[in-house]
């Protein structure tokens, strides 16, 4: 999916709408026997792989161990337990932060040889809604700093943030609402998509008499139309002109 997510931030920096549009990333579920070859450690509310990546997908992190270094074998699936991946499920049951589904601590569970062989699913963790709120307000502040740093008056603020895996596009309206779209770097037509999202917002969120301004948007019609617009933009895609 070329468009990953959409965020709408109100004037005060609060997140009023968020949509994740990507297909679930390939998670790896494998069976392991004691002892585990990688190092797990707690990070925030999760258990993540700190070291010991297997199968040389990205060899640098695991190169301290001889057997991991230089393994040129191409990985069968994209996401093996790589550094940074979090433990998502143990034996099929999703973990709840740092506790297993039964309420036991994940690290304790995994350090007990009696529990092996165990099947663990790793993957990139999804952001929780609190984290998204925080990130949105942080972005809002960065945006304000960006406008102030401008050598000329009347800067548009941050319009695009580019990384190797995604591009973040931001459009701030004259009233202070920001529409943020995270998309594939090759995706085109995001500018017109941002304008379209603004129109959809003014149609389905604002014209809804029961929607209060600056509050989280909970309008079905807005959701539906937004998804349609995203799909249309993706179809137009990197191969054709933006819609």
């Amino acid at each position, binding site marked *: 999916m070329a468009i990953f997510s959409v965020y709408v931030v109100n004037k005060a920096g609060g997140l009023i709408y968020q949509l994740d549009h990507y297909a679930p990333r390939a998670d790896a579920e494998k069976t392991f026997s004691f002892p585990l070859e990688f190092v797990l450690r707690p990070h925030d509310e999760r258990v993540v792989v700190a070291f010991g990546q297997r199968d040389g997908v990205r060899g640098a992190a695991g190169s301290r161990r001889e057997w991991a270094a230089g393994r040129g074998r191409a990985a069968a699936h994209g996401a093996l337990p790589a550094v940074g991946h979090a433990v998502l499920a143990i034996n099929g049951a999703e973990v709840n932060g740092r506790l297993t589904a039964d309420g036991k601590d994940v690290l304790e569970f995994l350090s007990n040889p009696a529990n092996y062989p165990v099947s663990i699913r790793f993957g990139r963790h999804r952001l929780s809604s609190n984290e998204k709120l925080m990130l949105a307000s942080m972005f809002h502040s960065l945006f304000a700093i960006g406008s102030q740093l401008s050598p000329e008056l009347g800067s548009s603020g941050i319009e695009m943030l580019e990384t190797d895996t995604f591009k973040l596009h931001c459009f701030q309206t004259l009233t202070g609402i920001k529409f943020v779209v995270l998309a594939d770097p090759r995706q085109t037509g995001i500018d017109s998509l941002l304008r379209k999202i603004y129109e959809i*917002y003014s149609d389905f969120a604002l014209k809804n008499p029961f929607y209060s301004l600056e509050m989280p948007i909970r309008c079905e019609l807005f959701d539906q139309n937004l998804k349609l617009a995203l799909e249309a933009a993706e179809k137009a895609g990197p191969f054709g002109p933006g819609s």
Partner: protein
Amino acid sequence: SRELFVLTYGALVAQLCKDYEKDEDVNTCLDRMGYGIGVRLIEDFLARSAVKKCRSYSETADTIAQVAFKMYLGVTPSVSCSSAAGNEFSLILDKNPLVDFVEELPAERASLCYCNLLCGVIRGALEMVHLAAEVTFLQDKLKGDAVTEIGIVFLKNTEDKKHKRN
């Protein structure tokens, strides 16, 4: 569908007159309702018209008259600046679609501002783009004046000292 809108507006004003005895109350109510419409309508206006940020009060007044009024009511009032300071403007409407079916105000409602909703709309919309303004009816054809004139007075910008968001 413009007719339906005009009729609905007329029914709204008539009902308000029944609900409130004093003209000022009706006027205030209309203004408040207009304000609620204005704060939402501004986004619709900005989304559809794609106007750039106005750099001066006169640009703003021009945009309101030539783009916004045209888009929503189908009329284009003329703009005149009525103060040396450059922050007071008048929009002169010779044709006001809202009063198409109204002959004249009833005798007991002599100080009713029939189109006060419009004032509220303009005020609400301007506030959302950080321009505080006072909008009133200076002349009203329904009250016997020659033309309908809406006065916009831009008040001191509250975000002058802080950085401009936009």
